């Protein structure tokens, strides 16, 4: 691992980069560091925003010189050599794959795509060597996704499939970004899956529709009251393929404001995951089944 880079983001931000590449072990460690920065209430620090392999600190230079803050953060990094046990919620995300809405959207922006002769889902299957849709969806949802970063717009979560890098499902972004994407669209680009929290521009491959929202500005749903978004960095989302009937049932519950997310809080031990990912995921699955 190369040396961590501490750099200025103008006069109010510091950017701390641990690695140029995505790496779960690094994400586990930086989440521990970020949670510790929040806990210590370092003078002048407004907030800390963890990202995939880096974090951003927003601070008031009237209260701390950025160089003094860098020294404090370097000390903290030396102190926290390995990732601690992280509180991590396992959240069930019901998804209608191959849905009509994202397919319609993909058709509208076909001229910006690598191969408009197939759907985005078929394109994602092909570049990852799958020919059967059922097989692909089963593989795609066979394990939880780790939320390594939250941001972009409120509630956007970067979801990283919990597997070794060589097994990652990958896809390029659109050649030119779309100017529109439906709210709750499920999409994939690079090594990340994301759900669009609001309608807007985007460049990820569109493959499905989440039945549940990830952003709730009106605080309509009881589980999102006072927090507005579903994602926490360090949560795990388990995507579950559903059919149109179940999709419609869940939508009715969401619209009535009575939908409750299925959330199980677990202690996540990064060291055990790193030792044997498959075994540890199996252990967490069994633990969750009995919760």
């Amino acid at each position, binding site marked *: 691992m190369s040396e961590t880079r501490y*750099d*200025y*983001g*103008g*006069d*109010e*931000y510091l*950017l701390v*980069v641990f*690695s*140029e*590449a*995505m*790496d779960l072990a690094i994400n586990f460690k930086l989440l521990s560091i970020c949670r510790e920065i929040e806990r210590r209430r370092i003078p002048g620090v*407004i*907030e*800390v*925003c*963890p*990202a*995939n*392999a*880096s*974090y*951003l600190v*927003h601070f008031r*230079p009237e209260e701390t*010189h*950025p*160089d003094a803050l860098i020294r404090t953060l370097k000390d903290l990094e030396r102190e926290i050599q390995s990732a601690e046990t992280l509180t991590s919620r396992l959240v069930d995300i019901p998804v209608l794959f191959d849905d009509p809405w994202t397919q319609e959207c993909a058709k509208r922006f076909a001229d910006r795509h690598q191969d408009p002769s197939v759907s985005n889902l078929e394109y994602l299957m092909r570049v990852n060597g799958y020919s059967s849709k059922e097989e692909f969806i089963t593989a795609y949802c066979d394990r939880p996704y780790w939320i390594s*970063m*939250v*941001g*972009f*717009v*409120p*509630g*956007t979560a*970067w979801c990283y499939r919990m597997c070794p*890098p060589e097994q*990652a499902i990958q896809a*390029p*972004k659109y050649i030119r970004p779309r100017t529109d994407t439906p709210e709750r669209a499920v999409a994939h*680009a*690079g*090594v*990340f899956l994301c759900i669009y*929290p*609001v309608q*807007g521009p985007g460049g990820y491959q569109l493959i499905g529709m989440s039945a549940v929202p990830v*952003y709730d*500005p009106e605080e309509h749903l009881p589980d999102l009251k006072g*927090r*507005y*978004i579903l*994602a926490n*960095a360090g949560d795990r989302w388990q995507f579950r393929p559903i059919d149109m009937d179940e999709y419609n049932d869940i939508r009715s519950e969401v619209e009535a404001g009575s939908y409750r997310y299925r959330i199980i809080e677990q202690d996540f031990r990064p060291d055990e995951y790193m030792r044997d990912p498959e075994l540890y995921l199996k252990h967490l699955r069994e633990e969750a089944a009995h919760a």
Partner: protein
Amino acid sequence: MLNILEPGLLTTVQDLGRLHWYHIGMPPSGALDDFSFRVSNLLVGNPEDAAGLEVTYSGPSFEVTSEGLIAVTGADIAFTINNQPAAQWRAHALQPGDRVSLGGVRRGARAYICLAGGITVSERLGSRSTYMLGRFGGLDGRKLEAGDCLPLGTPHTSPGAMLGRTCDPALIPVPQKEIEVRVVMGMCSHRVAPDSLKDFLAADWEVSTEADRIGYRLKGPTFEFNAGEQPFGAGADPSNVVDLGYPIGSIQIPGGLEAIVLLNDAVTGGGYTTIGTVITADLDLIAQASPGCHVRFREVTINEALQARRERETRIEQVRLALGIFDQAGMLGQ
């Protein structure tokens, strides 16, 4: 109460913004031209963080239902009270039934309207600022429409005490067609070819038509990237990085084809190379730049950026002293 008769092109409720929520993807929002907004509040006797209106390119018309005070600052804009021209950067009295109208901007991009007592739409996450992309804050998270009614708070000082107060003309910024903004280089700039970084600082950049509260797209030279394999998870394009946080004011170069400066409604993170950050003190200059304006970037050190920040506070302090305002209560909690 303000009854909106005409909303103008894009008028939103703003204050000094919503801090502490960047980590959920919620940008601060708030007035883009911080100096003009704060002075507008000071002129009507408000704390600097009271909510007012940000007007973009062309202004609203509204009727007031109670006695009060108004000041309009920022861009040079046609401003009338009951069809009589009124001076900007000055506190004017309002009577129930008075009609206030702003026309098109003559110079600059954004004007600020503050009224004694401030606009008191409900606070969300500690601020009244509108964040349109996230449908959050302000009035129902959107720009104003005809027929909207905005509540006003109780004035903090007696209107008579502030009537006719003006800002010292020497302190009033005049929006320019050509601006120079200072930037602290860094973050992902090591990925960019040294010659491209030199070109960035030497070039004359033009503000494109895609310039809003989220960010300003600038047209200028293209960028070359240093050779090398893309890191795992970064994406195939050399301008892609593993997604990271974007500071307010940061400059990103998607595809190496343009430069985007992020402003107060920024997307909080993403996967494009960032090469530096415009210093806080100079973001006001960008807020008043319109499409077709020219921008040059000048590199400064972190200590020069901090010095510029102190100088801006000194200018606000001079406005406050000239107005006889010694109570800084409005500054707390910013």
